[in-house]
Each structure stands twice: as C-alpha cells, then as structure tokens.
C-alpha cells in the first residue's frame, strides 16, 4: 500500500488530468466527424425524387447524381415495383432543386469512355415549375458501347453483303478480261494493218488521183472559159470588175448599219 501512496508531486491531481485529456480527445473526434460530415454534405437537407426504368443495370446506390457536371446528390436506393420495373430513388441537395424542374430529364451515362457511370440531370426550362418532393423525373438510358456497336453492325451488315456481291461480280468480269483483251489485241492489229494499207494508198494512188482530178478541173475550166468568151455566150456573162463603194451626198458621219442586200 505504501507504493500506492507515493507522495511524488507529479501524481498529484492525476485523475483530473486524465479526465481533461479524455474530454479533449473526445471533442477532437466529434469535431473531425462533424467536419467530415459537412464535407460529405451528410447534414445537407435533401429532397427525394425518383425515376422508373426497365432495368437496374449499371445503377447502384451511392452513385453520383450530377447537374452540368456538378454533384447534386446520390442514388439512395433501388426497389422493384409491382410491374417488375425498377424504381430508383435519388436524393438531391435542396440548394440544387431549383434547377430540377418538371420537364428535367435524368440520363444514365458514362463519364468518358471508361469513366464512372453517373446519373446526369438536364436542367428544366424556366417556365416549368420546380419538381416537388417524391415526384417522378423522366429518365433515359444512354446507349452503351456494346449497344452502339450492335446498332452500327445492323447498319453496316447490308453494306457488307452488297460489297460481297460487288466483289463477286468484279471477279466474274476479271475472269472474262483476258478473252476481251485478246479480242482487243486482234482488233488493234487489224486496225494497224488497215492504216498501213491506207498509208500506202495515200502515198501512191491518192496523189495521182488528186493530180488527175486537178487536171480535169483545170481542163474543164479552160473549156468553160473558152465557151464563156465565145459569142453569144459572152454577151450573157458579166465580166467581174472592181467597183467603188458609194458615198451619197446625204451620208452622215456615222451611217447606220447597211441592211443586208
């Protein structure tokens, strides 16, 4: 017992010191919790709204609800309805409820290609009243990559089939090409032979024919000239002569265009 009744001055008021220490520690813990709660907006007043969807796929409690990229609330929970659809209950901070209106629309989308899935609420029009507590908001699900690929495939598939058909026809045409080329070669060879023959003809026979024709024309001209100079034919043929352009006494400086005569 003598050990417990140590008169060391440092142990004096020990129980009081421990009490104060515990009180300060407890206050620190409470303050930390309050601070975390405030940062997590655990104490912010919230309004519950919901939407109904065919499937709860990709939707989970705690998922962020965003408006124009800002967190405005969370998915509180999911529940089955009587019609086997899913009722998704959202909690939106009251301060943001002024932008959530009756014509607002909630969408399930991914933030980026591999980002988190979030519920994005599109702000409603100014004319529309604010959404009341426990009201339903319209919902649509953005197409996922898989669905997009499915739709794209449905569009591209007929094109692929057409392309196959074109390729088959091209194959058929190409198969016939050698024969066509052979025929074309034969035609070109024949044309070349014809041109060579034509060259021979134009080099030898044609000039002679032209010369002959010219001689005939010149002879004919001489005969016609002789006949035209012979009486009485010469009396009926007016000899061409040079004439002077008229300039009458009433002609103006800028005469009008001569009428065709």
């Amino acid at each position, binding site marked *: 017992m003598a050990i417990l009744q140590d008169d060391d001055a440092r142990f004096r008021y020990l129980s009081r010191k421990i009490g104060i220490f515990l009180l300060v520690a407890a206050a620190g813990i409470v303050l930390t919790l309050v601070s975390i709660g405030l940062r997590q907006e655990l104490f912010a007043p919230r309004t519950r709204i919901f939407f109904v969807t065919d499937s709860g796929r990709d939707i989970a409690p705690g998922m962020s609800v965003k408006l124009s990229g800002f967190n405005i609330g969370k998915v509180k929970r999911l529940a089955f309805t009587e019609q086997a659809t899913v009722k998704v209950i959202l909690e939106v901070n009251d301060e943001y409820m002024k932008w959530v209106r009756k014509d607002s629309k909630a969408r399930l989308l991914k933030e980026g290609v591999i980002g988190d899935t979030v519920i994005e609420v599109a702000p409603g029009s100014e004319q529309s009243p604010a959404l009341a507590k426990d009201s339903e908001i319209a919902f649509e699900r953005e197409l996922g990559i898989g669905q997009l690929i499915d739709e794209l495939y449905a569009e591209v598939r007929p094109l692929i089939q057409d392309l196959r058909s074109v390729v088959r026809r091209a194959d058929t045409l190409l198969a016939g090409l050698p024969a066509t080329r052979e025929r074309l070669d034969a035609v070109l060879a024949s044309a070349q032979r014809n041109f060579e023959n034509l060259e021979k003809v134009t080099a030898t026979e044609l000039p002679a024919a032209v010369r002959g024709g010219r001689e005939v024309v010149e002879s004919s001209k001489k005969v016609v000239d*002789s006949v035209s*100079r*012979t*009486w*009485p034919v*010469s009396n009926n043929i007016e*000899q*061409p*002569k*040079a*004439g*002077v*352009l*008229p*300039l*009458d*006494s*009433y*002609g*103006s*400086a*800028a*005469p*009008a*265009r*001569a*009428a*065709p*005569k």
Partner: protein
Amino acid sequence: MNRVICGVFVATLLAACGSAPPVRPATEEAAIQWNQRGQEAYRHGEMQQALAAYEEALRLYSSVEQGEGIGIALLNVSTVYRRLGDRAAAVKALDRILAGGGIAIPTHYRAEAAYRRAHLDFEAGDIAGTSAWIERAQALCTETICDAVGRLPNLKARVALARDDISAAEAEARRGLDVNRRRGDALEEANSLRLLADAAVRRGQHPQAVAFYEQALALDKGAAEPGKIVLDLLGTSRSLAAQGKVTEAADYAERARRVAESIDDSQGEKEARSLK
C-alpha cells in the same frame, strides 16, 4: 452539095463572131477578186476584213502600176476608214489620189476623191474646206464619165443650208434634182428632194416640206435605203407636228422608230421617240 457549102459558111461566120475578148492578167484578176471580197465584207459590216481586202487589192494594183485600179482601191480604203471613224486615214488615202505626179489615176476618180474630201470636211464642220474641195471636184468633173456630177450640187445645197443661205440651197437642190433625174440616180434624186424639203422647213413652208419628204420617201423605198427612209419619216413627222397634226406626226414617228430599230440606228430611234 449546096447544103454542105452553106453549113461551112455558117460555121465559119460563127467562128469569126466568137472571137475571144482580151484575157485579163492574173494580177488584175486577183485584185478584182480582192475588191469583190472587200465589197462583200463592207456590206456585212465587217470593216476590218473589208479594209484588209481593199489593201490587198491596192497592193496588187500597185505592183503592176494599174492607175485605175489604184484609184478604185484608194477610194474604197478611204470609205472604210470613214466608216471606222478614222478621218485622218480616210483623208490620207484620198490625198494619195489627189496628189499630182506618179502613176496617172483617171480624172473621174480624182474628181470622186475631191468630192469625198469635201464630204469629209463637211462632216468635220469645215465649211470653207468643203467649198474649196467642191470647186476642185467640179473642175475635175468635166469628162463625160463623172459619177459625182449629181452629188456635187446636193452637197453644195447642204453647205448653203449650213450657211443659212436658203435660196442658194434651194437652187442647188433643184439643179441636183434635174441632173439626178436625167441620170436616173434615184438615191441622189431622193437626196435632192429631201434637201428641198429641209429648205422648205427653214422657210416654215411645212405642207410643201411634207410633199417633198413624201416624194423622197417613195424613191428611198424603191431603192430600199432604210437609213434614208428613217430621215424621210422623221422629217415628215416634224413638219406635220409643226402644222399641229399631232396624231399623224406620231404615226410617222412610230414608223421611223420601227425602221430605225430594224437597222440598229440608235440615233434615229432616239429622235423618233422624242417626236412621239
């Protein structure tokens, strides 16, 4: 036998009659062809082509020193330049004819050149120059062959009108009318009548003016000269309007407008519109 002799006689006679006329040299033949091409181009309003053709004809005639051909070609070159609005070039071509010495150009072509020189001076407003060239043309126009003989009095009448000498204008126009009627030159006869009408207008004798214009119109229609028809119709319209015959005047103005429109005579068209 007699038939054979007759046949030989007739054949010999025909052969004698059929003696060939003198054959033109090739250069002259080519120059005539260029001249004809020039006339064709001029008629179709293709003045540059006409000029090129007449200059080629002039070159060919010059190469053989053919005075008559040179005179014709220079007169034509001058006329084309006048139509192109190049008075200086037109005068230069005529001066080559009128200058003495060198290759002899027949006098009637020199008279024609003097007449055209007078015409160019009149168009330029040089009345004194016009009178001087008319006198020279008359002095050269003494031969029997002188085409300008009927045009000279008409041009003198125009000069007299420009000088407000109405009596002299009437006298020259009447002289021109006589000469042109005698020569059977319908176009110049119409010009004489139009000048008489113009003189009557100056005297304020509008009914007489209308009568002259209508006679001129009949001749111009016969000669198919649309430019002159426009002048006759406009003159008639003006004289009728001066007499207060507004409706008839408008009819003549409309006729003038239509004729002017058909030959692209914008000046005539404008004048006709102002009279309506």
